[in-house]
């Protein structure tokens, strides 16, 4: 089932966008799956295994859309590219850290997903709009979970607060890298695909800063609900395929079985 793009949509920038979405989900899904069997309590083991499975499913949906536009299979994109060909943001590639970091990363990512998928509600590409409409319902469960944990652990015991504050300090500049400008992004904005990463980042800040503040956590951002500014330096590079060795390790794990027997049928 191939998709013919209307001439009003810029092909290459659109492919960049879809691949970035797929790669983000693939890597975070894999990182979350690293908690299976190891989470601090059984309920969190179940939760993060579920979230991992959802994210991997979402990456498959984006890879399938990519296939319908290019003919390249999801397996080829996930398992045959070398680590320095992925366009995920660096944020989703870092090791899972302690449970506080995992919870914080998931929360900051879930809010970005909420904003991003919500913005695709007006997308000029029909397929992208429909997929986003499906995924945003599933993502609601992730956000409910991660937000609840951030609120309870941030404003919990001294020990939990200390872990969560350390997690914000580490994760916040990394999270800003989710909004790194894509190649050809201006064309995407002009053709009504989405409103652009600067707009998404502004919306995201408006959502996360009040929640973190209420959870008694300090965030390097100032301003009121109208507009929030941050002085933190974003950890960018991922969208340009400029990654750290953490991704090399992750992709090594992710592709290990596939590379042993690329033609195996499961």
């Amino acid at each position, binding site marked *: *089932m191939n998709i013919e793009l209307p001439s009003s949509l810029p092909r290459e920038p659109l492919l960049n966008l879809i691949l970035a979405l797929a790669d983000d989900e693939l890597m975070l899904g894999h990182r979350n799956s690293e908690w299976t069997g190891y989470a601090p309590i059984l*309920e969190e083991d*179940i*939760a993060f295994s*579920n*979230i991992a*499975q*959802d*994210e*991997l*499913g*979402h990456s*498959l*949906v984006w890879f399938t859309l990519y296939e319908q536009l290019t003919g390249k299979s999801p397996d080829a994109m996930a398992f045959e590219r070398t680590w320095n060909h992925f366009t995920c943001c660096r944020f989703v590639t870092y090791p899972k850290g302690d449970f506080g970091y995992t919870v914080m990363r998931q929360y900051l990512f879930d809010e970005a997903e909420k904003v991003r998928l919500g913005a695709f509600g007006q997308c000029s590409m029909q397929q992208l709009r*429909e*997929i986003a*409409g*499906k*995924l945003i*319902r*599933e993502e*609601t*469960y992730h956000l*409910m*979970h991660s937000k609840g944990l951030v609120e309870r652990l941030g404003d919990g015991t001294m020990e939990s607060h200390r872990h969560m504050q350390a997690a914000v300090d580490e994760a916040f500049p990394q999270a800003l890298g989710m909004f790194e400008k894509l190649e050809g992004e201006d064309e995407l904005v002009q053709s009504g695909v989405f409103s652009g990463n600067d707009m998404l980042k502004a919306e995201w800040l408006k959502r996360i800063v009040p929640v973190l503040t209420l959870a008694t956590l300090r965030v390097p951002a100032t301003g009121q609900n109208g507009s929030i500014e941050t002085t933190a330096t974003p950890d960018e590079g991922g969208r340009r395929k400029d990654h750290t060795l953490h991704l090399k390790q992750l992709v090594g794990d992710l592709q290990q079985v596939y590379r042993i027997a690329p033609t195996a049928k499961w």
Partner: protein
Amino acid sequence: MVERDTILEERIIWEELGKITDPEIPVLSLVDMKIIRNIGLVDEKVTVLISPTFVGCPALEHIKHEITTRLLALGCSSVEIQTTYSPPWSSDMLDENVREKLRAFGIAPPVHATEIQATLTIPTACPFCGSLRTTMESEFGATLCKQLFYCDDCLQSFERFKTI
């Protein structure tokens, strides 16, 4: 040549699809689940339009394989499966008799709610004893489409189908 005494028609295909059960909820068929959205039949070529409950559901591949195998065995010359997200699958699509089958199987049916957040506070009856003294243990469960509950009266764990 496959010899057949019935002529392929849409009704027969719907009947066959109604015999394929969801591998994770064996009391419900793909038609009960509203996973089958539509079918199209041209000569003996059939197109099946499906809408997944959760897109990451690992049973999806099995379901597609089952649809293809069963319809080829029925005499279709080719089976094409297409996926639609428009409108997205929703637990509100489940009919009352299907909810009853879920309950009888030991899974609390999904609650109606416009906001998913609200499902956290909607009381859920234990499918075993009917008590409303139940607690949500986790928003997640053994499969993507279910959540973990505990009944404070009959002291039994159970699952609720997620509202989506």
